[in-house]
């Protein structure tokens, strides 16, 4: 049964993709896309889910998908118009379908009554009361152990019986992906009168038999009233993995749906579903080697109907394997650094050959890294797509009207980051809808459109990825925030707080401004969890708000969690690393450029621009602040949004790639430190997070996690 379990996994993975295609399609229709392609893609997604579910005998899912499909079919056929109300119901049904698939994946089922309610609501909206029930479940017979075929004789015999000749020859790859021709044939036959002829001419001599190869082909002659499309649909899942050729004796009966792009439908009765052109069916003739066409076989022609998902050859790889590769790569980088260091100290150093080889090695390992990172990099689109549903649900629950607008969905980010972003992002979006947007009545009052907009965007900015969640709501009510913080004892009543400081209060544990606790948020475990989760990814969360115009939350994240280009430097006898991506310039200041502000603070005048000057060694608590003039080298780094700060260091040692090792697992977060790395000599160096460094100064305002219980 292990094989069946694997197949089921594949079904769920594919179902997920189909679901997102479904939702995307529905949204496209919602925004006015009227192309037949879009509707077809939506229909096809549900159809494929139904087919897959049928194969695993997931009856409630098949039933639901079937009725869903019926409505979509009407939409496709033009009997229904994409009214907003209908689209709402369709989206709701698609959400519920996702829930059902999720439940099946976990081996459970959703409440059948709820299933029924959702689909009935959709059917009511579509103006159909299940009167199409008696229509055959084309896919029902696919069930591995289910009853074969529906009683087609129950249908009126008005349509014409006709003779169809199908030749079917699976490729070797078909077996590898778990197809069994026996099931397909059984399914194809249904209740029709059938003659099947086996073509075994390709069978090798007994000695040369390879069980993994495909040697057999079949010619099936049917007396049927089903349309070509229905017949070919049986082979939907093996498409591209077989040669399939259909020849009808007479014209296919008028197909009400007309999904399949069949340019030559008219007089010529030949429809070839798989791209390789096979010779006309000659069962007696020795066909070509069965696996030969597989090599050259292009993508299945029928995928043209889902043209939006551009067909590019891809493979599915277990993420653990890629992670393993990343780990090994990390070791490679460390050992390469060790080797370089060892050679530099050996007598052989300085020879051109050694130098060149080392250089080559460095380049190669960098190339490997880039390639591996490219494997891990994924567009944020699937993540963003999921958020549409969050907005829908959150706005419904909060009695608000909201729309999600996404931008930069093709921005690529490390897969691990994407996965771990889902929860915080969900929370932020819910917050925006729940707390950010005003109620429709209020919006109307102040002249805003009743529908609120939450904008979610992603972009690459100077070696980091920046994700923003922006709402056009009321903005942060700072007086209220301040008052609540005082009530909850988070700040002393007489505290003087700047607007930024008040905004930052939202991230404090136990803070929640919602006066009434809603089901969505307002439990007081909100933004502080978001912040710690983002910090766990080496990122930061920022908040900005304009009263009456909305709030913007900004997440800034590293591109990858594995490797970064670092500048190795020394401060107070410690070896530390700065991310090169943050460095603007390095300079050797003269004493005239330094000015003291107050008792201890100093600024550096860099070409007329005054930058805060921070001694890294002192900021990290390794030594007392230096007196003016003692600093050796200054590195100007950019921090967060726009500004820059000057960091005083004792010496710059090297620039190299470093492997990022988290500190959280065994220790905890340290303000000013992003992570650690292992240097060429096997020692640990901390990676400084310059944007955090500025805030801490010699006395850290926050204790680290490790000491939290002291």
């Amino acid at each position, binding site marked *: 049964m292990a094989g069946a379990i694997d197949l089921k996994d594949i079904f769920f993975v594919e179902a997920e993709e189909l679901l997102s295609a479904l939702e995307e399609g529905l949204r496209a229709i919602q925004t006015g896309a009227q192309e037949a392609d879009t509707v077809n893609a939506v229909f096809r997604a549900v159809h494929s889910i139904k087919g897959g579910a049928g194969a695993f005998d997931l009856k409630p899912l098949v039933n639901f998908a079937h009725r869903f499909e019926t409505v979509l079919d009407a939409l496709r056929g033009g009997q229904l118009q994409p009214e907003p109300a209908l689209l709402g119901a369709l989206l709701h049904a698609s959400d519920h379908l996702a829930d059902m698939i999720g439940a099946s994946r976990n081996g459970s089922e959703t409440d059948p009554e709820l299933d029924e309610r959702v689909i009935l609501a959709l059917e009511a909206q579509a103006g159909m009361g299940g009167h199409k029930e008696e229509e055959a479940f084309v896919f029902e017979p696919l069930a591995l152990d289910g009853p074969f075929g529906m009683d087609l004789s129950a249908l009126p015999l008005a349509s014409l019986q006709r003779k169809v000749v199908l030749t079917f020859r699976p490729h070797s790859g078909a077996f590898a992906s778990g197809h069994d021709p026996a099931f397909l044939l059984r399914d194809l036959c249904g209740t029709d009168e059938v003659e099947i002829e086996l073509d075994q001419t390709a069978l090798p001599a007994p000695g040369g038999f390879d069980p993994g190869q495909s040697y057999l082909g079949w010619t099936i002659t049917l007396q049927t009233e089903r349309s070509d499309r229905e017949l070919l649909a049986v082979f939907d899942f093996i498409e591209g993995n077989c040669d399939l050729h259909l020849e009808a004796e007479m014209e296919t009966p008028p197909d009400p749906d007309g999904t399949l792009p069949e340019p030559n439908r008219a007089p010529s009765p030949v429809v070839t579903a798989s791209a390789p052109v096979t010779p006309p069916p000659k069962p007696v003739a020795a066909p070509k080697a069965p696996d030969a066409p597989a090599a050259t076989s292009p993508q299945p022609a029928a995928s043209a109907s889902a043209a939006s998902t551009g067909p590019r050859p891809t493979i599915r790889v277990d993420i653990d394997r890629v992670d393993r590769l990343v*780990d090994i790569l*990390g*070791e490679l980088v*460390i050992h390469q650094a060790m080797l370089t260091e060892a050679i530099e100290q050996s007598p052989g150093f300085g020879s051109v050959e050694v130098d060149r080889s080392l250089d080559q090695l460095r380049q190669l390992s960098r190339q490997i890294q880039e390639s591996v990172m490219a494997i891990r990099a994924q567009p944020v689109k699937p993540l963003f797509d999921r958020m549409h549903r969050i907005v829908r649900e959150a706005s419904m629950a909060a009695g608000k009207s909201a729309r999600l607008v996404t931008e930069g969905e093709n921005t690529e980010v490390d897969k691990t980051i994407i996965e771990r972003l889902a929860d915080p992002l969900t929370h932020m979006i819910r917050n925006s809808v729940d707390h950010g947007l005003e109620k429709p009545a209020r919006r109307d009052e102040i002249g805003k459109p009743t529908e609120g907009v939450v904008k979610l965007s992603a972009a690459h900015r100077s070696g980091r990825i920046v994700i923003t969640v922006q709402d056009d709501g009321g903005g942060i009510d700072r007086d209220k925030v301040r008052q609540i913080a005082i009530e909850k004892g988070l700040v002393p009543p007489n505290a003087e707080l700047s607007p930024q400081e008040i905004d930052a209060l939202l991230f404090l*544990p136990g803070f929640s401004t919602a006066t009434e606790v809603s089901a969505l948020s307002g439990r007081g*475990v909100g933004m*502080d*969890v978001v912040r*710690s*989760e983002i910090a*766990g990814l080496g990122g930061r969360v920022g908040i900005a708000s304009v009263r009456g115009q909305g709030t913007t939350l900004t997440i800034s994240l590293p591109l990858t969690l594995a490797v970064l280009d670092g500048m190795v430097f020394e401060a107070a006898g*410690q*070896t530390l690393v700065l991310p090169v991506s943050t460095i603007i310039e390095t300079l050797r200041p003269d004493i005239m450029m330094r000015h003291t502000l107050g008792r201890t603070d100093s600024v550096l005048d860099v070409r007329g621009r005054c930058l805060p000057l921070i001694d890294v060694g002192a*900021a*990290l*608590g*390794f030594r007392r602040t230096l007196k003016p003039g003692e600093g050796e080298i200054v590195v100007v780094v950019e921090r967060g949004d726009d500004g820059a700060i000057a960091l005083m260091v004792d010496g710059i040692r090297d620039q190299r790639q470093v492997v990022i*090792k*988290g*500190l959280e*697992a*065994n*220790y*905890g977060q*340290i*303000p*000013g*430190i992003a992570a*650690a790395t*292992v240097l060429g000599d*096997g*020692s*640990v*160096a*901390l990676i400084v997070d310059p944007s955090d460094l500025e805030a*801490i100064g010699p006395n*850290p305002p926050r204790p*680290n*996690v*490790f*000491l*939290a*219980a*002291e």
Partner: protein
Amino acid sequence: MRSSGFATDPDIRELVAFRTAGQDFCIDILSVREIRGWSRPALLPHAPSYVQGVINLRGAVVPILDLAGRLGLEPIEDKDRNVIIVAAIQNRTVGLLVEAVTDILGVPASGIQPTPDLASEATRSMLRGVVVQDSRLIRLLDVAQLLPPADDAAA
């Protein structure tokens, strides 16, 4: 090698005994991952004085605690001659800097006595009990108490 009867007797606990700040301590052998020599750690900013820093343990970054300092005793001076007991504590890996590992003890449960009331609260909270062996008093550490509870807020 010990006899199998000894090792599998459920009543016998095996403990790693070590010395630091002139006192004998022990921890359960099951929490010990390895024992290694001193190597210079990278300092951690704003860490309490007993946190020596972090070292590279085959690719993992592991913090080193001076156990004596953690227990409020005289911190270790001559680090080069001392050893680090790498212990797994609540899913974290932590190195404990001690003076020397002295013994591996097999102690029946009845041989572990409750901590005497005399000990200060801070010390007692980190002890599970004491073992008296060969007229030595060996303090059984509650390793979980050496670290504060892991931050569950993010989980």
